[in-house]
């Protein structure tokens, strides 16, 4: 199982790294050129604002999955620091809550996607069907389940070997 996780982890990290990098780069270039065009040629890109909004949606939701791996998710570690003995049980509890959250995201995310398909909505300027944007919710749910299981496996193994050794 661990080997399977490692392979998934590699692909997932590659996917997160490249898509996040490229989308932020795209937003940066679009906004920068918007400034250059406005002052140099009194012209502005109508689609840049929409593109940037989509980039924010994408980076926030996919970034959340990446944050689980780098343990960067914002959590209050007051209790964990003051009572180190609680660290392990609370970490497991927290993983459990994250799994529940992921399932909620998938369940309602899919329903929201279905609603978008039914209404056939798309974005104003770039004409992207909104279902692709809402698909980020179930996507985050799936990524989150994978990430949480991996991190939990790492933690449990570390705990076992610490107790055993």
């Amino acid at each position, binding site marked *: 199982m661990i080997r399977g996780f490692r392979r998934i982890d590699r692909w997932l990290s590659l996917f997160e790294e490249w898509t*996040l990098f490229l989308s*932020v780069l795209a937003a940066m270039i679009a906004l*920068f050129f918007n400034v250059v065009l406005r002052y140099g040629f009194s012209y502005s890109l109508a689609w840049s604002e929409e593109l940037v909004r989509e980039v924010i949606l994408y980076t926030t939701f996919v970034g959340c999955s*990446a*944050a689980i791996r780098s343990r*960067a998710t914002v*959590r209050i570690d007051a209790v964990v620091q003051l009572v180190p003995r609680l660290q392990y049980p609370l970490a497991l509890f927290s993983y459990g809550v*994250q799994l529940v959250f992921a399932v909620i995201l998938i369940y*309602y995310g899919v329903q*929201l996607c279905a609603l978008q398909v039914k209404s056939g909505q798309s974005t104003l300027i770039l004409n992207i069907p909104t279902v692709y944007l809402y698909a980020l919710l179930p996507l985050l749910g799936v990524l989150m389940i994978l990430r949480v299981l991996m991190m939990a496996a790492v933690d449990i193994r570390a705990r076992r070997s610490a107790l055993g050794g």
Partner: protein
Amino acid sequence: MEFSVIAILLILLGALAAYVPVYMSLFFTGLLGFLFFAPDPQPLLITQSFFKSMDNFALVVVLFFILCGNIMTAGSIVEKLIKVVNTLVSWLPGGLGMAGCLGCGLFGAISGSTVATVVALGGFMIPALIQNGYPGRYAVGLMTTSPNLGIIIPPSISMILYCMITNVSLQGLFLTGFVPGILIMGATCVYTYFLFRNDTVLVRMPVPGFREVLSVLREGLWSLLLPVIIFVGTFSGMFTANEAAVVACVYAFTVELFIHRTMKWGDVKKVIFNSAVTSSTLLIIVAGATCFGRYLTFENVPAKIAEAVIEHISSPAMFLLAMNLFFLLVGMFLDVISATLIVGPVVIPLLPNFGVDFMHFGLLMTVNLAIGYCTPPVGVSMYIVGSIANKNILYVARAVVPFLAIQIGVLFLVTYLPDLVLWLPKWMGFWEAIETSAPAL
């Protein structure tokens, strides 16, 4: 307040204490509130507002100011800024400590986040201070509290969020941050001066010659231009805040890649990826806070609190005092983003009743919540510095006391002298009297 709201607040605090990610704690308690107490709970709508709250152009500025801070830290801009400041003050008693504080201010003038400032400057200033003979407690206290300048001095994440929920001009609110920022830096430097005036252990540098200052300035010129670009661009109306952040990133990349050459092309991807992850961890809290805020609005909490406050408090001075104490308390438990988005809409409708200016209040909220970065039990900066300096949290809590006293002093000064901070936006034409506010949440 009824049972339902108190129960939900307790669940929120419990979830936060139980190591559940902040945004999930907010989302779940909001959801539970609706499930238990709403006649017609619609979890689908809550999930939708979780998503919709991220579809906001104004949020991009958070991403790019974080990116800008990370580029500076990965390259050598931060180092060069510190070097400039250090050359200017190192001949004074406690000079290196002053340099640490002023460096935080300068970094805060580029980055909008306190956490970024703690990580960027605390990491090398604390060991440097201790190596140079400064007491550990001073070093830890200074470098835990000075990064508060990150959100007090513009740009500032909490000011951006405050402007999202009110109609206050962002440029104007940014301008109010300069005076308290400079006061805090000044007071911290004076405190440092008197602390080390008669100290014989610390090595005092000779007064730098004109030529030395000139050469350091020349070396740091490209770095010093960065805040200049941000401020001139934003306050002259050339750029919006978003554009200023993007231009600053492009400038910082250009300087690091082509002029300082301390960053390699291969680092670009890593820096951008890391910044995207950091900004997502902050922005997702906005989404969670939106869900929780919806529950509070559903329970009509803002109106109930307004009623209670108006009934018990009569004078504006008392109101401001109560707000300061309230926000210091909130800052002990909530992070800056959730506090702004949850508590903001609750108290902002009260302002017209007491004749409090919206822009002034935005600044007060920012300074209050900045102080909350350094107050136990939930003081993010304390934990970061604790792990950097390898000290436990009680040690850090004691170390920050004198510095927090300075900041609280400045807070009360700007609370009761609104003109001290408002003259700048008024003079530059960014201030206007707002009669009503429209909470957007």
